[in-house]
């Protein structure tokens, strides 16, 4: 597969995530669209790591070059899990205070 196909797929997924963030008012859906964008980036990192590794394998048959990108994806997943737990706690607290998950209620700092 040409690398462009992967780039197009990830760009499309990322853009769908952006459109979701811009068009939805439910805080949970906005949060889910952020997760979607994170996953698009992860997929692109793995594809690039494979490309990097294939290029290195041409010179050295046992090369492990490109493994850093996969560990980077692993750490992104770790951070995303921590972020989700805190973010959902914030959303639950907001629901308890204003009885809604509508992000338009989060404008109290505006004036």
């Amino acid at each position, binding site marked *: *597969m*040409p*690398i462009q*196909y*992967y*780039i*197009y*797929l990830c*760009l*499309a*997924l990322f*853009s*769908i995530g*952006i*459109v979701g963030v*811009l*068009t*939805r*008012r*439910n805080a*949970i*859906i906005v*949060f*889910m*669209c952020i*997760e979607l964008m994170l*996953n698009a980036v*992860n997929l692109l990192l*793995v*594809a690039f*790591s*494979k*490309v990097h*590794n*294939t290029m290195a*394998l041409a010179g050295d048959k046992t090369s*492990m070059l*490109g*493994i*850093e990108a*996969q*560990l980077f994806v*692993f750490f992104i*997943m*770790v*951070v*995303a*899990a*921590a972020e*989700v*737990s*805190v973010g*959902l*706690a*914030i959303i*639950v*607290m907001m629901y308890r205070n204003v009885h809604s*998950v*509508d992000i*338009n209620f989060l404008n109290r700092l505006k004036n």
Partner: protein
Amino acid sequence: MSITQFLFYFLTVLALFSAVMVVVSKNPVHSVLWLIAVFFAISGHYILLNAQFLAIVNLIVYAGAIMVLFLFVIMLMNLNASTEPQKNNWLKLAGVIAGGCFLMVLVSLVKQANELNNIAVTMGTGEIGLIKNLGKALFNDFVVPFEISSVLFLSAMVGAVVIGKKA
């Protein structure tokens, strides 16, 4: 068309369709279920790239743990299509146009980049995605970030409890 190419196109179509359905579903529970479909498609892509460890971790962490957390919160709040807040149509149109412009600019950028031509992703081969090699690298070269991430988890846990408990 080989079986790998067919699987690539199938998983791509599945991922994009499910992602669109996440955004357009009125019911938040349906959105969560479509997002799980997206994660399964992305895990399939990982398997095609021979990143087996990441495919399994993606399924366990994202589709297993995180989406259950989302589903749990949605059911706790009793959200459904009738309580769903709606933006007005002009704002939605503006959001779609903005995202479409972003996509168009980046796609035209990639189309013009001649450096990317003749670079192919080899599928179904390669050793770097196997758990043996990843474990060696993780516990030799990346052991400090790994331990720091445990501190991050501890602080996230404490933070979630402090935020979530009744003040």
